[in-house]
């Protein structure tokens, strides 16, 4: 008898669980938005300091680091040894030989940092 009742209410229980999860998701999203609003003064200050609002998502190339400030066609100006001129570059990495064969001058200063 009990098993029949459970059998009947099970879909409803799943539906209620789903609704509760959606409710939690909406509440979590609202809390995160409130957090974003609270940190807006910090974001404004940092953009004023840096002079750019571009997100530091990729520091590989200037057209990825500051897409909003880079001139159109920037990826094509920097030569064949570039690491990534397309988002798909993350999925299809260039062959290592290409990077190994790049002239040193094209890679920047030869020495690395050192702690004094």
């Amino acid at each position, binding site marked *: 008898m009990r098993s029949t009742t459970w059998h009947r209410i099970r*879909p409803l229980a*799943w*539906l209620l669980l*789903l609704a509760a*999860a*959606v409710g939690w*998701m909406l509440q*979590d*999203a609202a809390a*995160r*938005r409130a957090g*974003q609003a609270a*940190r*807006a*003064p*910090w*974001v*404004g*200050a*940092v*953009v*004023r*300091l*840096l*002079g*750019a*609002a*571009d*997100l*530091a*998502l*990729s*520091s*590989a*190339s*200037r057209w*990825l*680091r500051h897409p*909003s*400030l880079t*001139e159109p*066609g920037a990826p094509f*100006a920097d030569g064949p040894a570039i690491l*990534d001129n397309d*988002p*798909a*570059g*993350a*999925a299809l*990495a260039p062959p290592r030989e290409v990077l190994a064969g790049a002239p040193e001058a094209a*890679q*920047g*200063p*030869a*020495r*690395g*940092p*050192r*702690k*004094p």
Partner: protein
Amino acid sequence: MKRQLALIRFALGSARRRAGRSFALAVALGLVTFALSAVLFLTEALRREFRLAAAALPDLTVQQLAAGRPALIAETHRASIAALPGVVSVQPRVWGYYFVPSLSGNFTVVGVETGSETVRRDLSLVMLKGRLPRPGASGEVVMGEALATFLGLDLDDAITLPVGRAEKRLQLVGLFRSEVALWTADVILMSLADAREFLQVPPGQATDLAVRLSTPDEATVAARKIAELLPGARIVDRQLKTRTYDLTFDTRGGLLGAMLLPALVAFLVLAWDRLTGVGPGERREIGVLKATGWRTSDVLLARLWENTLIGLYGAGPGILAAYLYVFHARAPGLAGVLLGWSTLYPALRLTPAVDASQVLVLGCLVVLPFVAASLVPAWRAATRDPHGLLRGTA
């Protein structure tokens, strides 16, 4: 209403009788919804972060172009631009990139007037630890946490970096808050004089000029006037920057979405294959329903409810899982593909930016074709002779 409730109860029973198939379809639907939702959540959240930050941008940025790429701009242009009507201020900026081959890392170097009251106020707002760089002191820098960790530096540690043939000693005096890591992860902020030395920008030159206007809506007019003054300059207004960002994430999100389309098509083909194979039990069931007085529309409605419920039980958890994956687990894997190659990744603390209409479109894109695909075989079976269906000859 009572009729619909009865149909829903019948549809639930029907889904339970074919539990294996219903479960498999719900899981496949959940996976496809998860993948598409994760891309949508991530791209929209990143776009929103930029849009909110864009409000504090200068109205215009003036760059000098040489040989088709940005070059240094003479600070003497500052006075001629400042004299234009509507221009409130013109700020020469010194900033650029620094690549360290041994670390395979690219850093963003930004110079600021460390003695300026506005700069000191802004810095004290966004710094988590340490102290402000002293005005006039050489080599004192503030860094993003990711960069400091990458270089293995703690507060007050010093590091020497090569600058041409010479070397520059930098001392870490402050760290940016992690809440602004999306903007500062790879940033080294230092005094203007240090930035000039570090980036080898000669006195009287700047990377670009930041222009603020009394009426930002007149940015296009001001940009045209500046272009007349400096024919070789490239002028970027704030709206153009926002549009560029929108397009960037549209392209990236679109590329990933396009990569996921085969998965969606594969799922629909699977659903079509599973649902068109109406088994003998199902035929008999439809035959019994028709023989006991059910109309074709009733059979179709029951099937519609059954697949809508499967769709709901599949897509709902898929969207929830995508939310947890992007906003709580910080999208491992997907972020790497979407953002590209990098040595320094900021901690992705994102805020949901997807509205109900987008979720609805997403649901329609996945659930509607699935429900529609299920109706055709049910309609074909329901329009046949009930006797034939019961005897198994139809």
